[in-house]
């Protein structure tokens, strides 16, 4: 009986070490799109039972701050609460179309999954999302293509407006300002699906002075995937 206990203890240890191993990783994020900008990116290594967002569930107010205005303050709060290892804003601002950014991260023992979020511009509450991707324990380079989500928290009116959570319209930082129109009448009301879901895309229009949308339909649409995440495990 004593021997049996020893064996199971050893097996448990082996299991535990496989499940929680500190990792030395580099996370690279590339914007694959033709005309979208990403707001400051958060790449977060955390425990498997935590998450930044879940498809089919309402966005947290912290995620909403990120998806509607690009603020990482809420994500940082979540990160602290769940003991996460966080890469915040590796690009030092907006990540332009087709550009890449990367940063290194040492993950704590139990932080075995990776999530990545950043708002996409122009949009009302669109974001790129990698949700609880298991960080491989074997050294190597791994590539994941990720899609655009809608936080489900704001009407996709596609009009210039606010980046504050709960306020209508899209934030318009300088590089986008000359690219967007004015005077749109508004594309859509509140989302039918108010949980996090795959973004339906921008509709836009072909007028910079009128029409329904302030978004340029020949420049600011997209098809998935919108981002490539390359993780190097040492």
């Amino acid at each position, binding site marked *: 009986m004593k021997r049996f206990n020893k064996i199971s203890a050893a097996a448990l240890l082996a299991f535990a070490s496989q499940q929680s191993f500190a990792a030395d990783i580099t996370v690279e994020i*590339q914007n*694959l*799109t*033709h*005309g979208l900008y990403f707001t400051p990116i958060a790449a977060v290594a955390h425990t498997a039972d935590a998450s930044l967002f879940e498809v089919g569930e309402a966005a947290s107010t912290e995620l909403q701050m990120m998806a509607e205005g690009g603020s990482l303050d809420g994500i940082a709060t979540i990160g602290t609460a769940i003991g996460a290892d966080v890469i915040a804003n590796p690009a030092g601002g907006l990540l332009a*179309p*087709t*550009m*890449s950014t990367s940063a290194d991260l040492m993950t704590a023992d139990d932080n075995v999954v990776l999530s990545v979020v950043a708002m996409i511009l122009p949009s009302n509450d669109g974001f790129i999302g990698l949700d609880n991707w298991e960080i491989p324990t074997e050294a190597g380079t791994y590539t994941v293509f990720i899609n655009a989500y809608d936080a489900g928290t704001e009407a996709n009116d596609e009009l210039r407006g606010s980046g504050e959570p709960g306020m209508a319209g899209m934030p318009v930082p300088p590089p986008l300002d000359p690219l967007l129109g004015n005077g749109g009448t508004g594309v859509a009301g509140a989302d039918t699906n108010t949980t996090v879901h795959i973004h339906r895309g921008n*509709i*836009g*229009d*072909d007028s910079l002075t009128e*029409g329904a949308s302030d978004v340029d*339909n*020949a*420049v*600011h*649409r*997209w*098809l*998935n*995937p*919108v981002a*490539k995440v390359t993780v190097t495990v040492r």
Partner: protein
Amino acid sequence: MQYLAKHYKKALVLTLPFLLAACGDDDTREVIVEVEVPAEIPDPVPVSYDVTVTNLTNGQPVSPPAVVLHSEGTLWEVGAVASVELERIAEVGDSADFLTLGDASAGGVGPITPGDSQTISVTINDITDANLTIAAMLGNTNDAFTGINSWSLANLEVGATYTTVRPAYDAGTEANTESAATVPGPAANGEGFSPSRDDTGFISMHPGVVSSDDGLSTSALTVEHKFDNPVIRIQITRTE
């Protein structure tokens, strides 16, 4: 890879003592004679692939695909500036220049209409770990193309098939006006290749076509020409 660096070996280094009778002395000289004899040239071993491209779109002809085998690097990738060779494919479907890149190549014959497929055979001698790059235009666009970027064939055994579906890319060399003057496909019969560049300058994922039915009033395209990813299926079989 099996090629010898030189097909000739240096051989027969001789030392010949001999008498120069005319001198009458017992004078011995050493002469080194170096001759070259041909070494055996191994027969090249052909390594061949059948590449089948299937058009998954509703209304986009896929231009004759360029299939290129090469040893290293990339011939195109997202984030890079398109080469002129790629631009010629993306803007007008002309693969002639692109096919001169790499170590071996083969081009398709004629466009692949929606729903149709085309098989292209390509052979390279002795090399089993080449990289495969494919590029083909979506004809009813300004500069959309599809393909695969530097996919390693090292693990594809004889008889094995690899299947993948591929998205649409934008060469970034021509603005997506969709105008009748600039779309070369049958939807518009406009201008093909233009050496000037008036778009982002970088290869990206394609945002899709808008079309006149969906709000771009100057577009020569209709809802028939819209697409979503993926746009083609590629099946690669190593045949020998």
